[in-house]
C-alpha cells in the first residue's frame, strides 16, 4: 500500500547510490590555470522583478532578481549625526537584504529547500560584497531585496551569484558606484599546488582550498573575499588573490555589453 509506514520498515534517511561507488580515480583534466570559462549573461528577463539577470558560466547557472526599494517598517528613528559630505545619517540609510538559494536538484545530492547555515553564510557574503558598490545613502528608510537562485552548480557558484546580483541591481536602475565582478579559484591538492581560476565542480570537490574574490573593476577595490582550506603560506594566498583580480578585470567587458544590450532592448520595447 502506498505510504504504509507502520508495516513497511524502510530507512528514515535516503542517500544517492553514488556514495557507495568508488570514483576516486576521476581526476580533473589538466588545463591552463588562467582560463576563464565562456560566460553568457542576460539582463532584464523577469517581468515581475524590478531588475533581473541570468548568468551561465560553464555548467553553473544562476538567476538573480532584485526588488525594491520598498519602505521599511522600522519605525521613526531620529537620524544621528550626518556623515561627512552631507550624506544621510547612518540610522536612515537604506538596507540591502540578500538571499541565496540552491535549487534542490542543483548539486550531486538533493538538498531540501530550507538550506540551513551554508546558504545563510553565502547570503551574508553576497551582502558584504554588494554593499560597497550600492549607494544606499540615496535610498533612506528603504530596503532593497536581492535574491539569487542557483539552478545548477558547476563550480564557482558564489562568484557567479555575485556577478549576476550586480547585473540585476544595475538592470533595476539602482544607483551604484561600480559593478561587482566575482571570480572563483581553487587549489589542487598535491606537492606543487597551483591555483586554478574558475574551477569546475570536479576541480572544486577535489580541491584542498577554495577562494572567491569580488572586485569593483573601475575603482579597483576589493569588494569581497571569502576563502578557506589548506592554502599554504600567505604568499600562496596573495598570488591567488592577484590571479582572481585579474580574472575579474577580464570578465568586465562581457558584463558591460550585456547591460548595453538590455538597455537597447528596453529602449526598443517602449517606443518614444
Amino acid at each position: 500500500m502506498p505510504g504504509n509506514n507502520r508495516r513497511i520498515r524502510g530507512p528514515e534517511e535516503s542517500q544517492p547510490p553514488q556514495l557507495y561507488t568508488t570514483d576516486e580515480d576521476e581526476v580533473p583534466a589538466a588545463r591552463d590555470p588562467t582560463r576563464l570559462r565562456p560566460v553568457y549573461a542576460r539582463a532584464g528577463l523577469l517581468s515581475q522583478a524590478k531588475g533581473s539577470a541570468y548568468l551561465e558560466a560553464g555548467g553553473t547557472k544562476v538567476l538573480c532578481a532584485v526588488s525594491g526599494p520598498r519602505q521599511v517598517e522600522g519605525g521613526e528613528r531620529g537620524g544621528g549625526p550626518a556623515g561627512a559630505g552631507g550624506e544621510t545619517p547612518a540610522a536612515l540609510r537604506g538596507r540591502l537584504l540578500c538571499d541565496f538559494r540552491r535549487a534542490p536538484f542543483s548539486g550531486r545530492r538533493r538538498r531540501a529547500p530550507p538550506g540551513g547555515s551554508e546558504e545563510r553564510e553565502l547570503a551574508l557574503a553576497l551582502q558584504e560584497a554588494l554593499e560597497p558598490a550600492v549607494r544606499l545613502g540615496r535610498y533612506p528608510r528603504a530596503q532593497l531585496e536581492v535574491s539569487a537562485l542557483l539552478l545548477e552548480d558547476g563550480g564557482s557558484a558564489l562568484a557567479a551569484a555575485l556577478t549576476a546580483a550586480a547585473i540585476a541591481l544595475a538592470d533595476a536602475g539602482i544607483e551604484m558606484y561600480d559593478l561587482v565582478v566575482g571570480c572563483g579559484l581553487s587549489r589542487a591538492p598535491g606537492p606543487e599546488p597551483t591555483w586554478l581560476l574558475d574551477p569546475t565542480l570536479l576541480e572544486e570537490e577535489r580541491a584542498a582550498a577554495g577562494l572567491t574574490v569580488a572586485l569593483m573593476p573601475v575603482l579597483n577595490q576589493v569588494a569581497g573575499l571569502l576563502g578557506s582550506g589548506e592554502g599554504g603560506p600567505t604568499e600562496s594566498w596573495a598570488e591567488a588573490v592577484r590571479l582572481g583580480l585579474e580574472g575579474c578585470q577580464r570578465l568586465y567587458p562581457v558584463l558591460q555589453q550585456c547591460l548595453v544590450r538590455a538597455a537597447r532592448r528596453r529602449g526598443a520595447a517602449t517606443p518614444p
Partner: protein
Amino acid sequence: MAFVALSEAEKVYIVHGVQEDLRMDGRGCEDYRCVEVETDVVSNTSGSARVKLGHTDILVGVKAEMGTPKLEKPNEGYLEFFVDCSANATPEFEGRGGDDLGTEIANTLYRIFNNKSSVDLKSLCISPREHCWILYVDVLLLECGGNLFDAISIAVKAALFNTRIPRVRVLEDEEGLKDIELSDDPYDCIQLSVENVPCIVTLCKIGYRHVVDATLQEEACSLASLLVSVTSKGVVTCMRKVGKGSLDPESVFEMMETSKRVGKVLHTSLQSVLRKEESLGPKRQKVGFLG
C-alpha cells in the same frame, strides 16, 4: 555587534591617531590588549576555557560524545560548533537578536576547521562506519567589547587543549557483537594535539592603516576588516572580508603579511601560557569568575 555612539570629532581623533601609530589606549597598531586565559573552569565538560580580552569575555565548553560518523568520511570523527550570544553581552542580543551574529561566528568556525590538518579527526574514530567521537564545542559570549572573532578562536584553542577524551576499547565477542568498554581509570584519557589549530586575526582598516584587536570605538570608525585564520606555522586556513566598505588590493596584501607576523607571536605566547598552566597541575589556584 554592540552599538556605540561616536561623534564625528571622536572618529576623526581616532583616525588621526591611528595614522601616527598611536591608539586611544596607547597601544601600537599591531598590539593586542592584555589577554587572560584560564582553562578547566567548568567541571561538567570534557574541556573548557575562559578568555578575557579587554572587555570581551568568552566561555567555551567542549563535550565529547559518541555518535555515528558521517557517510562521506567513515574513518573520522567531527566537530560541531554552536555560538550563543547571551543577552548579558549587550542589550541588542535580547531574545532572538543575537542569533544572526551567532550563526555568522559558528559558520566562520566551521570554515577555519574545515581542512585535514587543523585537528586530527582520525584519532577521534572508534570503529570505522560505526562509532566515533563528536566534539560539541559550545561558545558563550558573556561580554562584548570588540574583536569577538579573535577572542573566540583563542578560547576554542585553549578549550581543545584542555579537552580530555576518555579512552574506549571495542571488544568483539564470539558472536561478532561489539561492545564498548570504558577504561576504569578516570585519568586515562586521550589529549588532542592543538599544534595546528588556527587562531583568527582580525585587521580593521582605519583610514590608510590597519589595526589589530580593535575596541568597539575603533570598530565603529572602520568600514572594512579582513579576518585571517592563521596557524602557528604561518599557514592560512581561512580569509574573509567583513564589513560594508571595500579594500584596496595593496591593503589586502599588507594585511595578510601583518596577520602572519602577529599570528606567530600570538600562537607562541598562547602555547607557553597553556603549557605553564597545565604544568602547575591540580594544585594551581583557580581564578574563576570573580578574579
